[in-house]
């Protein structure tokens, strides 16, 4: 648990914010796909910390800067949105197993629905930072409407190709991001591409069903969390095992990134 200070907390649209936190240099470098548990330092607000993905990360001389992208959906995120420069926070992390990066792949397809763009920003940074520039990044971004397509400017500067879909057709293809996939994958070899996805469960589920059988996809899942470290077993997700059985894994410790094909959708609440 380390103390952090809000550097800025900018509103991006009706309900999305970008927050930068200053953390002590002891905070270790996150891997892409990892997350933190965030709460206020003041003894107010909800009991439990809230999980947020690492969206950006910069190591400076005597401190580090953690960038978070979040959407106001309830009490905790509404409280975050009231923070201002200087507000003290507590951060536990980085937590979880992030995305696996396979240097041998030629193309990296990053698929984000809605707030799913949060971990993808940092994944893109890492892919670029690891000199995988020669290899191509392809971004598939989906949102309800144009106003909610966040992080666009940054991804545009990354040099990858950008596919966009909106539910209402206000930008890009009209439809969900999962519908973009077949078009993109057409003609590509499973061995040559790596897929990464993050987004609401409904999107991941349709992604799973539209994914050709020989492609795999690393998907970052969300679950309500209490501890974030594997101690409470509250964030369990049901996964298929090879032997056709099921097993319960902790999203915080065994994930949040799982093989999309492992997920047992019967027990996931699609909202």
């Amino acid at each position, binding site marked *: 648990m380390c103390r952090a200070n809000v550097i800025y907390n900018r509103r991006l649209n009706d309900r999305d914010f970008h927050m930068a936190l200053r953390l002590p240099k002891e905070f270790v470098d996150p891997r892409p796909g990892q997350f933190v548990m965030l709460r206020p330092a003041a003894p107010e607000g909800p*009991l439990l910390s809230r999980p947020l993905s690492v969206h950006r990360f910069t190591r400076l001389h005597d401190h580090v800067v953690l960038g978070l992208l979040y959407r106001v959906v309830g009490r905790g995120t509404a409280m975050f949105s009231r923070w201002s420069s200087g507000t003290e926070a507590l951060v536990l992390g980085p937590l979880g197993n992030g995305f696996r990066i396979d240097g041998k792949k030629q193309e990296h397809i990053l698929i984000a629905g809605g707030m799913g763009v949060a971990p993808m920003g940092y994944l893109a940074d890492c892919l670029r930072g690891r000199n995988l520039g020669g290899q191509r990044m392809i971004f598939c971004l989906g949102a309800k409407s144009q106003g909610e397509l966040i992080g666009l400017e940054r991804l545009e500067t990354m040099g990858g190709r950008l596919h966009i879909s909106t539910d209402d057709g206000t930008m890009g293809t009209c439809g969900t991001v999962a519908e973009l996939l077949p078009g993109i994958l057409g003609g590509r070899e499973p061995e040559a591409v790596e897929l990464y996805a993050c987004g609401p469960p409904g999107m991941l589920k349709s992604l799973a069903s539209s994914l050709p059988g020989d492609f795999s996809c690393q998907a970052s899942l969300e679950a309500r969390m*209490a501890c974030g*470290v594997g101690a409470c077993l509250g964030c369990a997700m049901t996964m298929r095992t090879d032997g056709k059985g099921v097993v319960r894994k902790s999203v915080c410790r065994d994930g949040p990134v799982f093989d999309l094909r492992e997920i047992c959708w019967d027990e996931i609440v699609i909202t």
Partner: protein
Amino acid sequence: MGVEIGSLRLKNPVMTASGTFGYGEEYAPYVDLNRLGAIVVKGLSWKPRLGNPPPRIMETPAGMLNAIGLQNIGVKAFISGKLPFLRNFDVAVVANVYGETVEEYLRVCELLTATSGIHALEINVSCPNVKKGGVAFGTDPEMIAEVTGRARGVTDLPLLVKLSPNVTDITAMAAAAESGGADGICLINTLTGMSVDVERRVPHLKNITGGLSGPAIKPVAVRMVWEAARTVKIPVIGIGGIMTAADALEFIIAGATAVQVGTANFVNPKATLEILSGLGAYMNRHGVGSIKELVGSLTT
């Protein structure tokens, strides 16, 4: 800071609560386990348990509901896979024991008794999230006395019995555990609660109901500890919403010999250690030489 519960000697009264500290290893990066009074591990059953389907938790005002359903790797995998790590530390390890039947409780107790590195058993007759055993046993004094008595017969380890607050009269349950031969009573486990997603008109938990823990339940827990400590002669271990040293002191002053810290670990992984140092500071400030002087020191 040392306290005794039967033949169990703890270097201090701050323990972790079962199910909130994993098998110790999860929090080892944050907490020097050597400094804890004891680690109570996640509830162990004879066979591995998948636990309940998700969603399993939901936050509530100053609390949380959980319906984990005693997911665990089973006592054998615990002994082979988790206990060796804990043996590296100089800390009392307490195994929380669960069974669907009295026989299952006894088998788990027997195996743990035959294992080195276990310092006490905590019989969980209070889990609200399982169909058999658990709270079904913990609301019936005769069952409590029977489970305790028969466990007593198969183990010479210090025997703790963890009680449920979902009862009309906690003193009857405490007395039953004492009569069964318990060395100490732990209370409280969670209060049964429920939370509804009004937009979708479904329960937030797949299991419908769950156990309520956290600061919200502290007043109920302190009251029950106070009632139980005035009823039985064996030590009482206080649990429920302890976040700070002041919270722990409420329990101790009301009659608890030791305390267990649960949900607070989730909120602040260092909670146990901060509570410990807070207890020390309080004792200095009040000129209290031994924590035992504080146990049950409430003036009414």
